[in-house]
């Protein structure tokens, strides 16, 4: 963890609501006031269930979509105030790795052309220089250069994810967002990709935002983990803290659900009730209260603030003192 220098990415009070088509004034409250910082060469995990807004948050951080409110400071510069020309240059420093590598590559383009595109877009050099850079990068991600003449349909998911990673790293970014990079892969391939990412981030000195719905996948690679529920961050702490001393009831439930074999079905299924509500009609007060075993009147009425309960450990729960680890 690096609290030494100023953080690489700082987001404050980000809000993004998507209006719902054909239903008047309703909107999906995808990200609802998120403040976070990612240090240089730090790996932050972002965990949450589907629809909690984690992918939206990621796209806000890399300026792929613009927030309704809030600001993003990257490397000391205000992203939202950038002019289009600067923005294109800025694109080099921020990259995205997708959940489904097959969808992230045009099925009608050879892999080599997909790899070449970003280099050409940024005028990185002559064709031969680019080819050399690509071959070097393929070595880094452990891909046989022979397969780049193929089309995406002719490769396995693991190979394609390596290609996508190589393509992202070719531009030497400082910050890479990985949106569930392993959830479409099999267990044996998942471990390979996680090892690769861990390895590459050390070698390239990368800051990573690792998004996942599965806490287990984050354990081996993250320095810190932020837990998101319905557009808000409910807990943020160093990774071992999240696993060993989670304070938010939702984090505890996630934890239990991913450790089914140790905790047992009965215990795991009682830690949380019901299902995530729709972000179109989030519950008042603490968003988690309808499913929370600790909820009381306070939770139904007041939104809990993100409270610093220890160094590097923040929780947004009225009753965190009652959730003894």
């Amino acid at each position: 963890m690096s609290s030494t220098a100023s953080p690489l990415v700082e987001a404050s009070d980000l809000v993004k609501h998507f209006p719902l088509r054909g239903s008047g004034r309703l909107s999906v409250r995808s990200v609802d006031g998120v403040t976070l910082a990612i240090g240089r060469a730090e790996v932050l995990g972002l965990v949450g269930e589907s629809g909690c807004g984690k992918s939206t948050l990621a796209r806000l951080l890399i300026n792929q979509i613009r927030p309704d409110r809030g600001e993003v400071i990257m490397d000391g510069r205000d992203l939202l105030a950038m002019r289009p020309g600067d923005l294109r240059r800025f694109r080099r420093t921020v990259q995205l790795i997708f959940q489904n590598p097959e969808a992230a590559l045009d099925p009608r383009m050879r892999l080599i052309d997909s790899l070449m595109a970003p280099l050409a877009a940024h005028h990185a050099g002559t064709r031969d220089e680019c080819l050399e850079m690509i071959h070097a990068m393929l070595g880094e991600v452990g891909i046989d250069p022979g397969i780049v003449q193929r089309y995406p349909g002719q490769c396995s998911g693991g190979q394609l994810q390596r290609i996508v990673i190589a393509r992202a790293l070719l531009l030497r970014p400082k910050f890479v967002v990985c949106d569930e990079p392993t959830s479409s892969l099999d267990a044996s391939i998942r471990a390979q990709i996680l090892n690769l990412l861990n390895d590459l981030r050390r070698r390239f000195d990368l800051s990573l935002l690792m998004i996942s719905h599965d806490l287990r996948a984050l354990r081996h690679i993250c320095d810190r983990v932020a837990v998101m529920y319905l557009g808000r961050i409910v807990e943020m702490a160093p990774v071992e803290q999240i696993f060993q001393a989670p304070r938010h009831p939702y984090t505890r439930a996630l934890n239990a659900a991913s450790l089914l074999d140790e905790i047992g079905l009965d215990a795991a299924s009682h830690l949380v009730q019901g299902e995530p509500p729709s972000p179109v009609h989030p519950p008042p007060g603490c968003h988690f209260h309808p499913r929370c075993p600790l909820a009381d009147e306070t939770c139904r009425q007041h939104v809990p603030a993100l409270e610093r309960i220890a160094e590097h450990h923040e929780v947004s729960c009225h009753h965190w003192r009652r959730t003894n680890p």
Partner: protein
Amino acid sequence: MLAWRANLPAGAMERFLLKRAIVLVVTLTLVSFLAFLVPWLGDADPARAIIRSRVADLALDSAAVEALRIRLGLDQPLLHQFFAWLGRVFQGDLGLSFTSRLPVADQILRAIGVSATLALSALFLALAIALPVGTLAAVHQGRRFDGIVTFIAQGFVSIPEYWLAPVLVLLFAVELGWLPSAGWSGFETLILPAAVLCLRPLAYFSQVMRASMIDVLHANYILAARSRGLGLAGALVRHGLRNGIQPVLTVFALWLAGLLGGSVVVEVIFAIPGMGRLIYSAVINNDMPMLQGSIICIVGLAIIINTAADVLYGVLNPTVTVSGDAR
């Protein structure tokens, strides 16, 4: 993108219909304006045209033209004339036909009835054949039956009705004498025109039905229904048809709107007093009020049919929240 949908607030249907009603009024006003301009767009000025249409060969008497111009208010400013005309249109007064001297609205109303009868007969005939054939082709996807059906459908699309109609008349009316060759006097006169008219929609319906049933056959809910013990036919009847027929409905509405005025050739060949023939003779006779009235009616009907189809679609398919987005 979103896995859930907001529950629609009460009154969504009313709001939708209101929105469509506004679209209808606005479009009709615009179309009326265009229709109003029709006589001005041509090279002759309306008064001359009117006189010429009545007294075909006589030399134009400029005094008479001027008198008519004043009588019809043609000397007023254009916009003034338009609003006066629009007011009459919204009261259902489309003026008098140049040729028959009868109210245009009455003639159109009668013709629409005839065309609707013809179009609906043809389309339901097409539907009755296309639904089972399309379903069977989907079930036999990629096999010989499917190939033959597709080829025949392409053949049907390629047959011009102005060729088929005379041939059928020659065969069934002239040679065999089973059916009347033309006219509009009951069921017998309906058979040949409906048969000619149904071929192309038949081809389209069966292809749409086939494509949609192929999707249905691969749908997970059919697999789930079969895992509950339904046979393939049972699963298709109980869970397939209702989902598979929805795209056909959209195409059906398009064809219905299209045939209400578009069956010109068939109506002319079989001497059927429908919209198509009405418009055709209006064109031949330069009957401006009739043309104006028909444009307005056809556009209005197209919008109404579209809206009805959207509503029906929403009834059949509960995942659509009547806004027409799902198409």
